[in-house]
């Protein structure tokens, strides 16, 4: 690991004027060596430490957001929406009574992320912004296209943990399990730039596919801070579920990850559905065919089966990851039924 300067800031204004780089642009280079002049922000520091230890990131200065009070806290707004500060830890998120009552899919996603120890320090902001865990991307010996290199090694290499959708030029899967649930809830992302300029974007628009930008997973701009995640108020009878399957039940990255949010009416009839697949594509994958399949229907075992089939209709597995299809199939089906029965 390189030597670097450590700066602690205590207000958002200080923080926005301190940082000059995103982690993504600090890692990108033609040579395969990370930039050495970057100034970057640190939230929980879990992913940052990994990247720096591996020599993939060598910042000159690290700005610690730990003491920025404005980024903490979970608040219910008068209109029923919920604002989650970006420095809220996954453990705090998972324990919050309001979230547990209304957004069980998100709580489950947070609870199934990483390990208990890591959830105590990892923040929701850092979780959404962490870099992918593709083993080529994480290897200094493989200068891949996402780091400014020429090629994606996964297409011809060992791709059992890679994408089955949307792998246009790069086959990473999005690393955040929480993102899967947040997309299903149509969350929005609040960002603050220099001079306190704020913007709010739909989470789906925040994440970038390789088509849009192959070197970064999201639209965070240099100098910008992810300040909060905004959860919309829910319709009367909204039910949700999340399921995740890793090879290990303990601390492991998922092979498949599914979040379902159903707006119900009159018993088992689904008004509107959100079905999102994680660990499936470079961004959380919204299975619109499955959503359309469910809309307006009474949910049955058969219906859940049909929705699962629809969700995977456009999957394009690589040489070594077609086994993910039956896993997703089972998880989508089970997740729909689990959400329905949660009522």
């Amino acid at each position, binding site marked *: 690991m390189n030597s670097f300067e450590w700066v602690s800031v205590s207000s958002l204004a200080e923080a926005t004027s301190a940082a000059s780089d995103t982690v993504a642009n600090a890692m990108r280079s033609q040579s395969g060596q990370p930039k050495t002049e970057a100034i970057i922000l640190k939230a929980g520091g879990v992913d940052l430490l990994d990247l720096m230890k591996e020599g993939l990131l060598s910042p000159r200065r690290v700005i610690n957001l730990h003491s920025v009070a404005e980024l903490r806290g979970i608040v219910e707004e008068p209109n029923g929406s919920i604002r989650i500060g970006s420095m809220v830890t996954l453990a705090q998120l998972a324990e919050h009574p309001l979230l547990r009552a209304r957004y069980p899919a998100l709580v489950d996603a947070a609870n199934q992320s990483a390990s208990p120890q890591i959830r105590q320090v990892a923040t929701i902001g850092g979780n959404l912004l962490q870099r992918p865990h593709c083993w080529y991307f994480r290897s200094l010996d493989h200068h891949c296209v996402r780091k400014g290199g020429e090629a994606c090694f996964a297409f011809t290499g060992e791709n059992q943990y890679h994408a089955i959708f949307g792998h246009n030029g790069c086959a990473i899967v999005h690393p955040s399990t929480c993102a899967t649930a947040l997309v299903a809830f149509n969350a929005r992302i609040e960002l603050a730039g220099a001079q306190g300029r704020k913007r709010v974007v739909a989470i789906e628009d925040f994440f970038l596919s390789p088509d849009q930008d192959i070197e970064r997973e999201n639209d965070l701009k240099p100098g910008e801070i992810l300040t909060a995640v905004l959860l919309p108020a829910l319709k009367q009878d909204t039910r949700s579920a999340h399921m995740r399957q890793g090879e290990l039940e*303990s601390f492991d990255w998922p092979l498949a990850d599914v979040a379902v949010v159903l707006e119900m009416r009159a018993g088992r009839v689904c008004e509107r559905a959100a079905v999102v697949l994680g660990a499936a594509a470079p961004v959380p994958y919204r299975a619109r065919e499955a959503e359309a399949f469910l809309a307006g229907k009474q949910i049955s075992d058969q219906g859940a089966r049909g929705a699962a089939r629809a969700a995977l209709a456009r999957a*394009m*597995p690589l*040489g070594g990851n*077609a086994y993910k299809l*039956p896993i997703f199939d089972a998880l989508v089906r089970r997740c729909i039924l689990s959400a329905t029965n949660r009522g």
Partner: protein
Amino acid sequence: MAAGNEHDQRYAVGFDPSALAEIERRVPAGEAAPLAPNAKLTWIGKPVARIDGRAKVTGAAQFTVDVKLPGMLYGRLLRSPHPHARVLALDFSAAARYPGVRAVLALDEPVGRAVEAPADSSGPEAAQRRVLYVGDVVAGVAAITPAAADAALRVIKVDYQPLPFVVDLEAARQSDAPAVFQRPVQAYAAGMQSGPPVPQQRNVRGPNHSGSRGNVEEGFAQADVAIEGEFRTQVQTHCCLEAHAVVADWRPEGLTVHLSTQYIAGVRSELAQAFGLPLSRVRVVVGAMGGGFGSKLVAGNYVRAAVALSRRAGAPVRIVLDRREEQLDSGNRPATVQKMRVGAKRDGALCAIALDTYGTAGVALGAGVGFVAQGLYTCENFSIAQSDVFINAGPGCSMRAPGNVPGAFALEQIIDELAETLGMDPLTLRDRIDPNPVRREERRRGAERFGWSRRQPPGADPGSVKRGVGVAQSHWGANVRTNSSCEVRILRDGSVEIFSGTQDIGTGIGTVLAQVVAEELGLRPADIVVRIGDTDFPAGAVSGGSSATASLTPPARNAAYRVLRELFEIVAPALGTSPESLVARDGRIALADNRRGMTFREAAAQLRTERISAVAGRSDDYGGFAQKSGDRASAQRMLGGVQFAQVAVDVETGIVRVERVVAAQDCGRPMNPRQIESQVHGGILMGLSYALYENRTIDRHTGHVLNADLEHYKIARSRETPAIEVIILENYQGTSATDAYGIAEPSNIATAPAIANAVYNAIGVRVRQLPMTPATILAALGRIPTRSVRG
């Protein structure tokens, strides 16, 4: 001091508590009296807490990484980024000038791999070093800080000429594959210590047929049924929690090496030879350890580098491997492909076993599959053909029951399949073909505890999560190293010490030695100070081959017995009796009827000199060994194990969960059931992790290991842990002063096949490939679609 001559003694033998008989054994002079079964003893066989437990859980225990010597330098190794390359030039000039750097050197003659025959020519090509895998050592640096050492590595200029390479086992077998070695490899073949010369065609060294017997063609001709299968096992890495670590201190008066190792004495010999020093000038020391599993038996390249750097720099040098180095270059369990065919009569009697196997230990030899198929069951006709296949990957080495772990995965599934084909219960078939009385008893006790009789037909469970049960067996040599000794000292204040040049790699041998001495001297284990981990002490045993307890507890007991006789001689006159009438019990030295006596402390106060001591070496087993060659011997018994597993398989996701394992194991006289259980838990977890998760993965195009960390290399963790029940069979044979043998490796062998058989019982489909990941299970179930594949 010897007590009398060779004489006959009576020993209780058999399985306690059920079947004890008495037999007479001829015993050499100076051996302690026959030891009663555990039920009648005070400390031996009792669940005594580890003597180092508190230090370990409070962080007080000193590991090699905690050794900090004055002026100590930090060493780092430069490793090859290429899977195969010629080193055309090495330029150290910038590294040598780097601030804080004290020594830089090339590592030209790495060890721990297959050795090529010498080159015919003496041209420049022959002299050029070739690196053979990513992570192969190239050079070493020692500097005053770790950061300076790392920085210096980055300014070493290496001119590599990349060469064609091969990392895939099947690709390496092709006749036009890039050759890993240019010339034939010297040494013996897969798993063999010795034997006839073995052919070599490019990367394939073999087949070796040694171990074959009878005539398998005739055997198969007589068979009513034949079962065959091809089994594939992966590369597993040791994953010691404590990394390989060394601090080498070269001084004019001699070399001291602090090293995390399973064999301080062996490392001393190796280093003495490598650096031209007499044994008397090399001292190897180890404190607490966090695992070895076979990967710390020898002085690897990093140890030699630390010594050479220390000699050059004139200061102590510390090298600690990081996790990536651990995964790339500290050894591994070789991958295997085993084609096995077994023929049997309708009643189960085996007529023939044919085993054709190849595997890869990277650039090393040793991909053999042990002696499981060869010896677990009665079968007159056995043929074996084993080959090593070289690939450009880090060398394999011993790993917990080497060969036998993959070997059992194949044989025990075939036997399971045979039982089904014959319409027999797998336990009934084994009762028919397994002559070993230990395992027969273990099957009986294990089946009862497990509830084997509730077993259902394969695939009988309805629903998507199917439960199943399976059983598998193991055998392992009752190994002994005769170059093993202990010294017991009694000091004038009544304190007691035991010295032995062995090491505790986490197994608890130190605690066992304290129990043995306490039992013999009538004291408590806490009264005994255990001094191990230093080659200055009497020659200890290797912590390998599951031999330490078998090698050291008899001499520990005999040394205690002999020094106690000396104490009896000294105090007998004061008690007005003869030494022969005294006993040591409950902290007292007294007449057997306890009429007259004194405390142990009062007795010790009568010593004429400040201390008395006795040294005992490991005598041969009473009645002799089954095999002995140099210091290595094995007893006239095999250690048996039977494990039962219950799994739940989700046939929609392919996830296998092991819910319960019952293990019945034998290690002769159990010395400390708590530590034995702990060992068996470790063996089962390692076996479970091997069965379901672990798999070193190399990119076939770049030659790089992609999971050289504990994030991408999957290993069982807390939530993968099943309910484990351990049945320890007390098996007395009266063959040494303690009758104790090993447990570490035996407990690791039967787990994977027991799980595989349980998976079959759950889903009705045989899985012959490890690890049994969702991808493997779903493929076996035919549930993976073949549409729209790209890439």
